[in-house]
């Protein structure tokens, strides 16, 4: 038998006290691990969105910026022509130094024109890119796959009173409605979406591009560098990183994390306090026992290490079970927080166990000091 085993036996002697000592840590670590696992999963989901949905970079002609400065009429035709983007500019973008980091470069062409007698905005993009560029779109019917097929935004469908299978007339041509888009809350709800070639033809601007949407291919992309390189490749274009959508979601997650941290901190503080109170009580109760140990030659450090081992065992057991519980809770709850269930994260659990041990240690420092300071005469005096 050594001090470690002595501590262990003492715990078993006072099971309910040990359970109570560990309860705070158990709940605190459970809360902490659950919340931080959830936060981590949500952050992962945001990063995922940043990669997949985030058209991280937008390329528009510089003209618009100029037109702000000079007024609509101040620009010479040649200048406007030079500033306009074309499908061929996509090649320039794809040949920048960081081209490997580009996941997709999607040209968009927008024009306001007639659709069955109503004035609407037509948005053209390569049909095969729709799924890549707008993966969150929900369509009833089909996505337009061929020339002559269109997708109607929800409001446009209502305005034109058309559904899948219907036809829309424009520029003397017939377009078949392949599908209708569920409301997205974005501008495309009021648009007619069609293969880019058709929209260019309607506008009489073959090869024209209103803007490019570029998605980068990594979690921590050097977006600023990519922006700079594209800007160099296309001097006539304005290149900007747009992350607002994702940033706002990220801000929400940040808020959740801060809230989670605050809640965890409170529960952990209570847990630490419970350790402090129960261990202090145990020291009080065991004055005589500690006196006997001192009388038989235990140094003060041996008393301290006895108490540390006791709370160490309790903290370890309760922190580990709290971490397991927290991980399981996060796994079960993740769908409620809009996160797909993935493999349970180990990091929060490991950090949780470490924090739990540290908490048990901190909570038992004052009682241990008190125990060490007890006079060994107590043992004899209590005769």
């Amino acid at each position, binding site marked *: *038998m*050594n*001090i470690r*085993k*002595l501590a262990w*036996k*003492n715990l*078993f*002697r006072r099971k309910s006290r040990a359970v109570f000592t560990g309860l705070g840590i158990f709940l605190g670590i459970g809360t902490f691990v659950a919340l931080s696992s959830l936060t981590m999963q949500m952050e992962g989901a945001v990063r995922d969105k940043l990669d997949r949905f985030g058209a991280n970079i937008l390329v528009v002609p510089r003209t618009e910026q100029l037109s702000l400065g000079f007024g609509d009429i101040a620009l010479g035709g040649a200048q406007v022509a030079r500033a306009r983007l074309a499908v061929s500019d996509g090649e320039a973008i794809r040949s920048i130094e960081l081209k490997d980091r580009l996941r997709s470069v999607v040209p968009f062409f927008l024009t306001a024109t007639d659709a069955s007698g109503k004035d609407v905005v037509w948005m053209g993009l390569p049909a095969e890119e729709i799924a890549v560029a707008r993966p969150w779109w929900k369509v009833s019917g089909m996505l337009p796959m061929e020339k002559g097929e269109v997708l109607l935004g929800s409001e446009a469908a209502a305005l034109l009173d058309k559904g899948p299978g219907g036809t829309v007339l424009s520029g003397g041509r017939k377009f078949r409605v392949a599908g209708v888009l569920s409301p997205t809350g974005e501008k495309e709800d009021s648009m007619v979406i069609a293969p880019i070639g058709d929209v260019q033809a309607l506008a009489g601007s073959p090869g024209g591009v209103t803007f490019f949407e570029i998605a980068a291919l990594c979690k921590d992309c050097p977006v600023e560098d990519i922006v700079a390189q594209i800007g160099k490749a296309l001097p006539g274009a304005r290149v900007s990183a747009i992350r607002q959508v994702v940033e706002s979601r990220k801000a929400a997650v940040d808020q959740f994390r801060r809230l989670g941290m605050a809640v965890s901190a409170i529960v952990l503080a209570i847990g630490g306090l419970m350790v402090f109170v129960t261990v202090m009580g145990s020291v009080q109760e065991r004055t*005589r*026992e500690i006196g*006997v*140990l*001192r*009388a*038989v*030659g*235990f*140094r*003060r*450090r*041996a008393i301290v290490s006895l108490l540390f081992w006791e709370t160490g065992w309790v903290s370890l057991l309760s922190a580990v079970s709290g971490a397991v519980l927290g991980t399981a809770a996060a796994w079960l709850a993740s769908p409620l927080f809009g996160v797909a269930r993935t493999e349970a994260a180990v990091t929060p659990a490991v950090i949780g166990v470490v924090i739990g041990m540290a908490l048990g240690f901190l909570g038992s420092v004052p009682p241990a000091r008190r125990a060490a300071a007890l*006079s*060994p*005469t107590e*043992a*004899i*005096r*209590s*005769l």
Partner: protein
Amino acid sequence: MDPFIELDNVSMLYGSNGTIAAALRGVSFSIAAGEYVAITGESGAGKSTLLTLLGGLQVPTSGRVVMGGIDLSGLSADGLADFRKQTIGFVFQAYHLLPYLTARENVIVPLSPERMSSREKADRADGLLETVGLSGKENRLPSELSGGECQRVAIARALVHDPAVLLADEPTGNLDTTTGEQILDLFSEWHGRGKTVLMVTHNRANLSRATRTVRLRDGLVEEDRRMSPSGRAMGLPG
């Protein structure tokens, strides 16, 4: 006779809420190695206090306690702990066993901070339990032992570091006469091996075992006498 233990004008004051109680008021005497001293006196005379000072559980308010050439007042708390471990074995009236440990484990307790194999510790404990007549009861809890058996375990625990001095505070106080006699036999046996024994006792019958009796009264030595080997009291000069 070389004094092994020296008490030099030892006073012990206890202060609580403004009142000061003098438990010892200038006690001086010395004890040679191998003596068996019975300390007697009325309740409150200062016997237990004297024992705590001799055992290095506390240091006197004034005066010196010197043991084996070491002035205990000069030791730190850990120094005193080491001194107790190396030199002193304590036996208490209430046994003070740890109730959640078996007899063997209770005997091992003083060894638990030591770097020593579990096997070695257990062997030493079992050897001592055999000496005090508890073979076969090593795995019993204190609650499964009689009072006399508990005190035997406590004695085995006190002896586990092979101390030069055994200090006992009314060790038979909770026991019937026969059982008390058996316990006293163990002290006599230990004394017979040349060890020093100091025992606080109320029981007149216990005095016959001792080689010397020191009687305290109100924190002072009232009487100090050596017994002849035949057990007859002899006056002590000086």
